């Protein structure tokens, strides 16, 4: 009567010494605002500078996932206001991501990867509910992330959990990510929708703030039932973002999902296109970086 569609979005911090677009240290620090500079603090006139190692690691991961590494990819600005984003846009890869396709095999299923791309991480927020204030720590702002988006190939919660465990292990073994969930270097959101075999297509619900595989399974199982019951009672599942409340074991609404249009994607005018040759792809995938580590690959011909 229902088909469950579950997809995952994983954000893994890449194991670089510095941030994605500036030379601030990427090392974890509990002291707030230690690793900051005019670039990651979005100062007027500061411009992004791409970390080569982030590209190497992304390619390595993409190759391990048997994906197509694009010889040409580009960066875009995803524009929206949020406290953890000093530029009020995130530099990501929307139109031409670095990595397309790919898959990871579990015991009895193949999970397909839709795409994966480089983007910068946001600042860390702490809450002072009594004062109605939030505190921001920009140590994390600008760290290199690889976002991996899967197809909705998961049939149940344990598959999703198995996939994440395998991906997590792979990332650590390849030296691509530290994978320390408690430090936020391996994060994931899940998208769940129900497709009724008859009747209307329903909305897609995104669940955020899951920080363990166990909680992920619980959240998926809860949400599946919530959506089924909603439809059986004649309701419609709204597309929204929800959060999993671990103590109560339920998902609760966070906010309405912004439509794609509202992000006003703009090709990043401060970064050129990312070109990688097939030789480079092969070299990076083999756990080697090229000999000349500082590569200025702009071909500026008069």
């Amino acid at each position, binding site marked *: 009567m229902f088909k469950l569609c579950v997809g995952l979005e994983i954000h893994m911090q890449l194991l670089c010494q510095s941030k994605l677009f500036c030379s601030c240290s990427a090392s974890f620090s509990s002291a707030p605002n230690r690793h900051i500079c005019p670039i990651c603090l979005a*100062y007027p006139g500061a411009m992004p500078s791409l970390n080569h190692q982030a590209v190497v690691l992304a390619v390595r991961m993409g190759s391990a996932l048997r994906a197509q590494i694009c010889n040409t990819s580009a960066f875009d600005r995803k524009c929206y*206001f949020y406290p953890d984003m000093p530029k*009020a846009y995130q530099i990501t890869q929307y139109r031409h991501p670095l990595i397309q396709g790919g898959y990871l095999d579990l015991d009895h299923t193949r999970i397909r990867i839709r795409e994966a791309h480089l983007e910068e991480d946001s600042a860390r927020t702490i809450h002072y509910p009594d004062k109605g204030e939030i505190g921001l720590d920009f140590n994390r702002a600008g760290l290199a992330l690889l976002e991996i988006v899967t197809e909705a190939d998961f049939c149940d919660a344990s598959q999703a959990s198995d996939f994440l465990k395998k991906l997590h292990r792979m990332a650590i073994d390849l030296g691509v990510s530290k994978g320390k969930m408690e430090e936020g270097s391996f994060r994931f959101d899940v998208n769940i929708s129900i497709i009724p075999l008859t009747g209307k297509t329903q909305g897609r619900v995104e669940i955020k703030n899951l920080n363990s595989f166990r909680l992920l399974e619980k959240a998926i199982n809860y949400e599946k039932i919530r959506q089924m019951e909603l439809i059986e009672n004649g309701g419609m599942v709204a597309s929204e973002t929800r959060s999993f409340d671990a103590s109560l074991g339920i998902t609760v609404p966070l906010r309405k999902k912004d439509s794609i*249009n*509202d992000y*006003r994607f703009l090709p990043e005018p*401060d970064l050129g296109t990312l070109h990688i040759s097939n030789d480079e792809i092969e070299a990076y995938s083999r756990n080697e970086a090229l000999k000349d580590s500082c590569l200025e690959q702009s071909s500026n011909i*008069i």
Partner: protein
Amino acid sequence: MLQVILESYQTHEDQLHRQNCKLNAFISRTSLSESSLYPSYLSTTNPSLPLYGISVGVKDNIAVKGFPLSNGSRIMKDFVCPYDAFVIQKLRSAGAWIMGKTNMDEFAMGSSNEFSAFGPAINPHHPSYVPGGSSGGSAVAVASGMCSMALGSDTGGSIRQPASFCGVVGIRPSYGLVSRYGLSAFCSSLDQIGPLAKDVDSAFKLLSIIAGHDPRDNSSFHLEYEQLPENSNVTTFGIIKELDQIPMKDDVRNAYEFLKQQLSKEFQLKELSLSHFKYALPAYHVICDAEASSNLARYAGTHLGDRVNSTHYQSMLKQSRSLLLGTEVKRRIILGAYFLSSQGGQDFYHHAINAQKHIRIEMERIFEKVSFVLSPTTPDTAFRFGGKKDPVAMYYSDICTIPSSLAGLPSISIPFGKSREGLPLGMQIIGARFSEKTLHRLAKKIEELSLV
């Protein structure tokens, strides 16, 4: 020699002291530009450096450590900048003295310097007339002798037009020749920093110092000024029919025709068409407003600049931005958001970028036929304060300067006489990309002709 330098500086300093309260060219100076520090700067700086003793005014959207970076806006009026732009590092290495930060239209959006939170700058040739914008302060500072040279920024004419209105030389370099690192971004794919000075040689001297590759700016070309090609064989010049035929003030028309005639004695004149001319203004405005809307999103009272406090984040943003940003800036931000959104199913931004490509290609073809193009810098002279209430009329002032901006080509405004009211006239020459050295020679020739 030292005496000459000291006297020259003192003249500038006195002029500033006497005139700035009226002309409002400089909006901040700080303790770092105190005249009492000048002698020790002289004694601790290597006298053989190219800008030794030279006082330079810097537009207040260019980062200078320890100085404000107001961008002509209330939202940034108390902000003190913690780092130097690339061009400032170059100025310092060349031994220059930074005189202070100059007035500008807010966030570089304007053509008259009327949109400054610090009050307008005044045209030194006539107190009721605008100096032009957005680099109005820099143009006034140089024209009135408050400093030797100045830096401005040009997106669609913001150096050239005020240079023309104030009777000084202004250069918009080839896109990519001068690093934008440290220039508060307005329209990233069009912005360029450039020099203003009283004479052609000084302007090019300043350009040669600030130019050069910067690995931190991805739009910066791998070129130092010395590597630019020399071109000794100039035989042809062109006029663009569509620019030639626009309505112009009589005095501008006369000066332009006279110069055309004079140059025709030495170079062969070719009349060329820019068939994509009608797309230039729309493409420019879409690209600018779109990029500006994202470049200015960081000014929200969050982590830098002034904040209007509120109970919630969202209202804090709205109040800070709505109260502390000017009307023209808000207008362009919203238009820019419109051009980037898919509201109404239009794909404005991508069509504008496409139009820009067409224009660039056509302009490049023009320079296969001629070595330089001549036009007036603007179809008018400086206008009265409040004289252009309609934004469309204001934008028309940039019609001659926009095409070369879109194509990334170097262009220079050279003062060329005065109108009957005594207001300066400016003529523009445009060259192929990276042809600055050729344009230098040609600009000098025009400068000589202007004295005829």
